[in-house]
């Protein structure tokens, strides 16, 4: 049996570029679980794949765009949201999912994130948060906890991390949720909800990086991290995102924001009609 044949038999193979498997992610990495939840959500919703575009940036999670069988763009570092905005505005029929990592979306790409959220551009942003830059060998990033060890914080991290759900809510996202890769069912439901909802939606997924971040911080194997997620995560829907900082003692998960406001595309359409009326003397 060839590798492709092996993957061909997967029940969700029709959503995957099976010829590109096995993927590049390390054993125990949470990215595969996120991909799995995403394609399960597509399948449950019966999404028209011809109208789906997956956009990613650079880093481990950035490779995800190349594994999903739909139109996909693996952009420059930090720019997936800006590029996705161009796709969505030029062709509003398309459903856009940006799937990328914490460094890509919140360090180099942080400005694009807050402005797309503020504009309420219609897209679903899924962030695999593994607390470091895995692809380049484990440097600290904008979500790395204080005192953690990485190759560029050899004496411990002295930078305060972002609380991503608070940031997303403050920037204006209409849907904000956080899960860990342990919460596969809830994450899948959350992705389904986000894909069906209009506006800028954000889902943070706390994800283990046992080979790099985990090893350096003595977090054990992936299964140990999963056990830890079970012990310390607490589901609190509607919780104040500003109080939902991730600590080694507690990870508050759930839906923090679920609201409505006109999207950029809707406001643009309203303005278009107004301008047309003016032009035709109406």
């Amino acid at each position: 049996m060839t590798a492709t044949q092996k993957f061909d038999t997967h029940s969700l193979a029709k959503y995957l570029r099976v010829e590109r498997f096995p993927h590049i992610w390390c054993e125990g990495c949470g990215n595969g679980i996120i991909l799995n939840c995403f394609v399960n959500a597509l399948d449950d919703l019966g999404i028209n794949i011809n109208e789906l575009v997956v956009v990613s940036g650079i880093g481990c999670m950035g490779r995800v765009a190349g594994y999903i069988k739909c139109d996909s763009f693996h952009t420059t570092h930090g720019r997936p949201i800006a590029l996705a905005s161009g796709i969505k505005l030029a062709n509003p029929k398309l459903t856009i999912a940006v799937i990328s990592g914490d460094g890509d979306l919140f360090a180099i790409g942080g400005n694009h994130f807050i402005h797309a959220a503020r504009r309420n551009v219609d897209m679903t942003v899924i962030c695999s948060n593994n607390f470091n830059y895995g692809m380049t060998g484990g440097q600290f990033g904008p979500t790395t906890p204080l005192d953690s060890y990485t190759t560029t914080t050899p004496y411990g991290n002295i930078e305060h991390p972002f609380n991503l759900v608070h940031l997303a809510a403050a920037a204006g996202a209409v849907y904000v949720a956080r899960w860990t890769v342990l919460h596969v069912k809830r994450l899948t439901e959350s992705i389904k909800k986000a894909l069906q909802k209009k506006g800028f939606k954000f889902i943070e997924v706390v994800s283990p990086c046992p080979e790099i971040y985990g090893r350096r911080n003595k977090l054990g194997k992936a299964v140990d991290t999963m056990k830890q997620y079970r012990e310390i995560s607490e589901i609190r829907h509607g919780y104040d995102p500003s109080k939902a900082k991730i600590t080694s003692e507690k990870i508050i998960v759930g839906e923090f924001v679920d609201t409505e406001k006109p999207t950029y595309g809707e406001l643009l359409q309203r303005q278009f009609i107004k301008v047309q009326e003016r032009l035709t003397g109406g």
Partner: protein
Amino acid sequence: MAKKDRTVLTGVHFMNGDVACAEGAMAAGCRFFAGYPITPATEIAERMARRMIEFGGIFVQMEDELASMAAIIGASWAGAKSMTATSGPGFSLMQENIGLAVMTETPCVVVDIMRGAPSTGQPTEGAQQDVMQSKWGSHGDYEIIALAPASVQEMFDLTIECFNLAETYRAPTFLLADGFTGHLWERVVIPRPEEIKTVDRKKPSVPPDKYMPFKPDEDLVPPMACFGEGYYVHVTGLTHDMRGYPKTVDPKIQYELVQRLCGKIRKNADKIVRTYEFMLEDAEVAVVAYGIPSRASVSAVKRAREAGIRAGLLRLVTVWPFPEKQVEELSNRVKLMVVPEMNCGQVVREVERIAKETPVHFIPKIGGEPHTPSEIFEVIRRTAKA
């Protein structure tokens, strides 16, 4: 009543270069503009903000030039002809995603209304200091197309040509104008829509299961399926095979891809390059100029003729790919060449490289004033005498 075509403002107008550029873009079929305010290019965005919505085109002001360049790439893959406009500082920020547009063969137009530099420099003063940046600004080996307008009419005409070249060669194409031309007010004639030649990207002629997104035709340009058309295209800035999948450690794939990206411009240079000759038939002294200095050069050449010096002008409409054949042929039949530029020496290096034995006299001009005809005439007179 027939609906008025608001994309092409047919008629005679008095407008500035930036506005003419915006009108040229819309006449060429531009339906997506993303930009960020910057002097002296802001009027392009302002015109787009007012006009695009009249016919359902998209104008979006992004958070910076990194995002603007990314957005026009995304829009192009969503099927829209797209453009951004900026000046030096913004052009520097765009270099990252200009490289992405080159690598992913994304048709799009980038307008750079050049101002005094480096850094923030002289926002309100025209210059030609970004010519080499437009060629080499992003990392790696690549070729691009850049056109240099010298009048407000050309701001309109050459913007259309930029779109047509971008669509033909699937490459980012630059309108490289100086701030003086951008802010100049002149008469512009906008033709009827049916008189304007527009080009659209090649589409695949095979079904999705047979389609290789980066497999070139004989002209080295692959047909382009856009998002939403059922082709499941994967686009990446990584080195990729013809299927579009990353192949980053295979020397052959990197070699063939980069050679083709360069080759599709280099090998089609004869079709791309446009120059304009003035009184060169019997010339002994040739002025080689582009953009606004070429206008003072016309006067300088006329004055030289009156003074009995057989001078002429080669105006480069295309700056990149560099008109090597035209400059080489000219260098073989004139005694000397004169190059006025609003910088400290950029295109003159290319002229010197190609002219070889023929002496080349450079006339730099920086500070915020274009060359006067006298400044160019004096160099012609002095060097012709010697």
